[in-house]
């Protein structure tokens, strides 16, 4: 085999291996970013919330988390087939009605679910707060999620202030809303 051809083949092999290593590193890094957020909030830090923009469950418009800057946000990841979500939803609706005037938004992210099922669920529980749909669950990694339900509380500056994995209690919901809203 000519020396030039051999060098070209070796270079191609090195390029293929290098691109596979880069892909692996990107995958590992993007996965760990979400988990790092969870650890940071548990340590008492308040890292900036990742971006989130998804289609609304009803209609054609898209809703972005950035559009709620200046308001406190309860970001709840749910699915219609998730049993604890059935207990959380009425609590979230009640909190939304109660704190809305003070600048609180509840944003429900329906993930890994059929749209029709999610709409039926929202109708059944008379949800009036905004809902977005993420069928593939593509946002879950960036937010460090592992199951349903999971909830983040975000303050008016867009910083994460609290996180609950699984079903939150009424006390946790209240306390974290007050933290997100900040001093009156």
């Amino acid at each position, binding site marked *: *085999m000519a020396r030039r051809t051999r060098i070209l083949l070796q270079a191609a092999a090195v390029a293929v291996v290098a691109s596979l290593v880069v892909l692996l590193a990107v995958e590992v890094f993007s996965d760990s970013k979400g988990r790092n957020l969870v650890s940071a909030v548990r340590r008492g830090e308040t890292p900036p919330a990742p971006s989130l923009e998804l289609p609304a469950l009803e209609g054609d418009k898209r809703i972005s988390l950035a559009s709620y800057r200046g308001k406190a946000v309860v970001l709840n990841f749910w*699915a219609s*087939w*998730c049993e604890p979500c059935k207990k959380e939803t009425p609590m979230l609706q009640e909190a939304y009605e109660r704190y809305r005037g003070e600048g609180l938004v509840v944003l429900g992210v329906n993930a*890994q*679910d*059929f*749209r029709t*099922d999610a709409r039926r669920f929202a109708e059944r529980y008379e949800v009036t707060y905004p809902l977005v749909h993420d*069928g*593939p*669950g*593509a946002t879950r990694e960036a937010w460090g999620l592992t199951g349903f339900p999971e909830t983040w509380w975000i303050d008016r500056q867009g910083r994460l202030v609290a996180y609950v994995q699984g079903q939150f209690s009424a006390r946790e919901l209240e306390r974290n809303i007050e933290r997100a809203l900040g001093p009156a």
Partner: protein
Amino acid sequence: MTRLLLFAALALAVSAPAFAAERPTLADLEDEVICPTCNTTLELSSSPIAERMRVFIRARIAAGDSKGEIKDKLVAEFGEGVLAAPPRQGFNLLAWLLPAGGALAAVFTLAVLARRWRTPRGEPTAATRAANGRVPLDPELERRVDEELARYEA
């Protein structure tokens, strides 16, 4: 007219099994669709969403959808990740071509290496050894030896 009816009956008899074969079953799709929460095929999952997907698939089969139509509807809900194998088009085609290309490259490399190992450089092949029982000389060298011998004898 009788001939026409006979022909129609025959055509129906031939095409009916074909239509029946096109109609998918739940089992046909269960190993081609991924449960989004557990990342295994539907047939291996008993999670709530997997159960819900089975209900959806049964309903679409009953409504007369083809396998492709059902898959398209699942992709519209859950994205392409819901398919166990990527579709053979666009960028996804690479997922099908790369392994085949890799296998071909491996076979080619092995063939080249095997050939090299069998015929070490600078030594005669086994075939030439067997042909005359001795190592053949380079033609140029042989010509010079003949010349030297002729001069010596003269």
